[in-house]
């Protein structure tokens, strides 16, 4: 967890970029993430200077991969900025404070799960209803970004795991990420040919739950935008 402080410059060096990406890039410094073309050239030079096998094909592959990755990061930044501006506009338009997207009684019960929390003001669950809605939207947006990277149309657990791993403010959710998903994410975020041993080493400090059964994506798929199917799929809960 102490490595989070060093994630200020993810674009510096191939090794540093690979290691820092494993902990999630900093979404609040787009200038650093979207570096100028000069930094890419510097990265290629670093590869050659370290004595790694640097053929023309490997160099081009490395360059193409980093370019695509930076392009996706830039797209994510744009989506996030658009998301927050729409959130602000949406809050300005809110006129109905009686109906919340999440039940206040449930929020209050979850807050009181902590034994030291005894008295809560009436405004606290209202704030949480809105904050939790923003949290779900941001987590979904970042997860969907990973789904698009892999050319898929189904939001899977490893997409959530990737979003949690890549974002600093989601570190408190690391313990719900299965070990398998994290390994895939670590390997995917590190470019090939640069210290593959660092992946498992970086994964050790985290605490993971035991591996769960593989998810049946096809059988238990839910189509969004069709609320009629909601009670049929989740009636058991």
């Amino acid at each position, binding site marked *: 967890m102490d490595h989070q402080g060093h994630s200020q410059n993810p674009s510096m060096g191939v090794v540093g970029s690979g290691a820092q990406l494993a902990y999630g890039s900093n979404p609040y410094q787009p200038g650093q993430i979207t570096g100028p073309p000069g930094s890419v050239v510097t990265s290629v030079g670093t590869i050659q200077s370290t004595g790694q096998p640097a053929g023309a094909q490997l160099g081009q592959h490395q360059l193409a991969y980093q370019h695509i990755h930076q392009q996706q990061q830039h797209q994510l930044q744009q989506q996030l900025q658009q998301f*927050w501006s729409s959130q602000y506009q949406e809050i300005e338009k809110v006129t109905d404070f009686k109906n919340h997207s999440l039940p206040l009684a449930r929020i209050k019960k979850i807050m009181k799960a902590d034994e030291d929390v005894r008295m809560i003001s009436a405004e606290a669950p209202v704030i*949480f209803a809105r904050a939790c809605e923003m949290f779900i939207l941001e987590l*979904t947006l970042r997860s*969907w970004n990973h789904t698009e990277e892999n050319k898929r149309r189904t939001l899977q657990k490893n997409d959530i795991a990737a979003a949690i791993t890549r974002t600093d403010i989601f570190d408190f959710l690391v313990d719900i990420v299965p070990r398998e998903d994290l390994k895939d994410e670590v390997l995917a975020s590190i470019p090939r040919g640069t210290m593959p041993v660092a992946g498992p080493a970086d994964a050790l400090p985290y*605490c993971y739950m035991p591996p769960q059964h593989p998810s049946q994506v096809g059988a238990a798929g839910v189509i969004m935008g069709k609320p009629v199917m909601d009670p049929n799929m989740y009636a058991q809960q």
Partner: protein
Amino acid sequence: MAISLPINSNNGDRVPNLVLRDKSKMPITNMMKIMSQILLNNVQVSYDTMDMIQQSATKYINFVTRKAKDRCQSECRKIMNAEDLLWAIEELGFNDYVEPLTTFIQRYRNIEGVDLFTTHKEPISHIENHGPSLGPEPNLMSTLEMLHPPQPPQVNSSQPKFSIIPNTNLEMLYPNEMSSTKIHLVLVVQMMFSTTLMFLLSSIMINIEMIIEEIQLQLTIMAMDYDIGNK
């Protein structure tokens, strides 16, 4: 923004109760509606993914609540309010959330303030209950006063229909010992008196009507005599 490892360990060790599993988390239906705002219509979300997001939302509330509790305890306050949550959200690195939530809570307070003011202005209706024991007492006294003077008991004590009057005298002598039966008897006497009075008034009215008719007849005869005298 880094989180210490023991907190995560403690979170991982906590196993939710299976019976209360559904109630201790955010409802999935509500979360799906929220997610549909940002995802396309043809996007599918697996069941495991929904469960994972459900856990994430629950952990988010616990995470922020625990941080807000630290501020409450440091300031020796027992009630956790909106400012504590906003402070905790900012401390935990969710900086983008603070400004929208601040605007949200300000607008909420404006509207809720108006509602509270309107509620206090509602008129308070209060129905006063009259004492039932105050009603019959004046009637009882007036009934006793009207019954006693016109009919002395010594003269008419032998007749059966006046046998009620001695009981009335006893009630006057011992007012504290009146029982429910005697009160009922007094009410019966009161009803009989009222009925008699109504009968008498009706008779008087009939007599008056007869007198009026007779007077009108006499006037007609006198008028006829006057006409004959003139011719």
